[in-house]
């Protein structure tokens, strides 16, 4: 659906993007992570045709954005970091303007009604944009991206400046949109990317530092699986039992959590939850907690942007 091949971009002497390549499949929600100035927005601006790359190419649905921008842009809906809103217009007039600008061939009123319903701006359609709150402005920005029902949605920090309730709503909306669109979003909020995206691309200093499925990057796919256990019984006996279970590679004692109950961190090279349950159920030990403990995205991100990735 989106193919980015070996793109570079310089601003004067500063190399903003250094031979970036990735591929986004149809229906994926892909998250862009990176520190400020890492090149996330530049990449998004190049994908949408707002900026041109110095070298490399971007294909949207097989169409080159540079050679055939008009055709390629028809497939893209873009919500930049600052929503491109005309403050002097009412929401309705603005959305009609974008509809005409994109030369959409769908029935206008029905299409706009459906989008306004979807993003929750029905109440403010007659109001002038400059008088609206940040949350509504962000939603109108999303609405303009959805006009024309583009297959690809590029969302640059879609939840920035929203309050917690609005963030949750926006995430839910993006998840819903992901069912029928290919979505690329950038965010500084790691938990958001982890919660919403199927795939993550981490950019550091204009280069892709890591990319992969969210599960892979957050630990469970990296070969080692970790389980946090709290078990009631004698600590040493539990420890020995855990150590002797097949595929368990390492057990760490974490200490007593409450009277007679001990916490352990078990590392294994495969899923050992069932075998641990069976082993423990044959004894008097009682499992109080068994919780998969992957490396958080925060840990992965910090690890990668500090340059310590393998």
């Amino acid at each position, binding site marked *: 659906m989106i193919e980015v091949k070996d793109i570079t971009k310089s*601003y004067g002497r500063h190399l903003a993007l250094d031979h970036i390549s990735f591929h986004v499949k149809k229906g994926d929600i892909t998250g862009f992570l990176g520190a400020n100035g890492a090149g996330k927005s530049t990449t998004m*601006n190049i994908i*949408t*045709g*707002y*900026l*041109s790359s110095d070298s490399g190419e971007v294909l949207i649905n097989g169409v080159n954005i540079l050679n055939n*921008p*008009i*055709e390629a*842009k*028809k497939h*893209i809906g*873009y919500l*930049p970091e*600052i929503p*491109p*809103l*005309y*403050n*002097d*217009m009412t929401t309705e007039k603005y959305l009609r*303007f*974008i509809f*005409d*600008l*994109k*030369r959409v061939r769908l029935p206008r009123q029905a299409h706009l009604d459906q989008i306004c319903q979807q993003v929750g701006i029905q109440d403010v359609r007659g109001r002038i944009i400059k008088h609206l709150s940040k949350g509504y402005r962000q939603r109108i920005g999303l609405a*303009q991206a959805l006009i024309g029902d583009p297959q690809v949605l590029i969302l640059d920090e879609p939840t920035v400046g929203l309050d917690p309730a609005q963030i949750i709503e926006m995430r839910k909306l993006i998840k819903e949109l992901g069912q029928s669109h290919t979505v690329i979003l950038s965010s500084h909020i790691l938990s958001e990317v982890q919660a919403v995206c199927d795939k993550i691309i981490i950019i550091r200093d204009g280069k892709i530092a890591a990319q992969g499925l969210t599960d892979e990057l957050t630990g469970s796919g990296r070969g080692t699986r970790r389980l946090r256990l709290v078990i009631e019984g004698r600590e040493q006996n539990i420890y020995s039992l855990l150590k002797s279970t097949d595929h368990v590679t390492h057990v760490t004692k974490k200490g007593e959590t409450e009277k007679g109950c001990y916490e352990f961190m078990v590392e294994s090279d495969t899923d050992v939850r069932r075998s641990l349950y069976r082993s423990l159920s044959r004894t008097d030990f009682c499992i109080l907690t068994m919780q998969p403990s992957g490396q958080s995205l925060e840990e992965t991100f910090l690890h990668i942007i500090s340059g310590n990735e393998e």
Partner: protein
Amino acid sequence: MFAIFKRELSSYFSSPVGYVVAAVFTAFCGIFFYVQCLYAGTSNMYTVFQSMFFIVLFLIPLITMRSFAEDKKNRTDQALLTAPVKIPSIILAKFFSALIMLMICISIYLIDGIFLSFVAAPDWSLIFGNIFAMLLMGSSFIALGIFISSLTENVTVAAIVSFGLNIIISMIDTIASTVQWDWLKGALNAMSFQTKYSNFALGIISLSDVVFFISVTALFLFLTDRVIERKRWA
């Protein structure tokens, strides 16, 4: 292109700018018309048109100052440049909306002419010739103003620089008279907006003058296109 044209035109009247420009133009045109026609007791509007030349120099930057500068400031250029629209279409839409704004102002000439027809016989060919001339010359100033606006994201800077350049353009004749080299004097005189406009104001329509204003307009619109393209590649 039509969507942008419509939006730009309506934006003049969703802010005070359009009303202020139209009001100032109408006020000055009214004053000159009263003093130089009604009070002077003549139906010849030549001096009115000559006087309005300088008013237009000051008003056109107000019309064009926001065209690209404000889009850049508010980041609405991202909506325009990521839409399936060609850059020349965006520029032409902004150009024609500014030209229509100017036409709205100029239409006051017709009202003056109609008013004059009640008391005397106005020279309609002179009036229409001047409307045509004002549109041609206005096109050049609008194209220049749009070009300046594309260079900055500050509307005030765009307006001031356009004012400055318009004043220099209006002074080309004066500058030419102080130059000693004949070739430079000739070149400057050939570029004089005022001389060409005066020809129209007198009712002399010359093809070379028409081509001159169209060429200047095309040149600055082309340069605007280059500025926007260059920004994408910068």
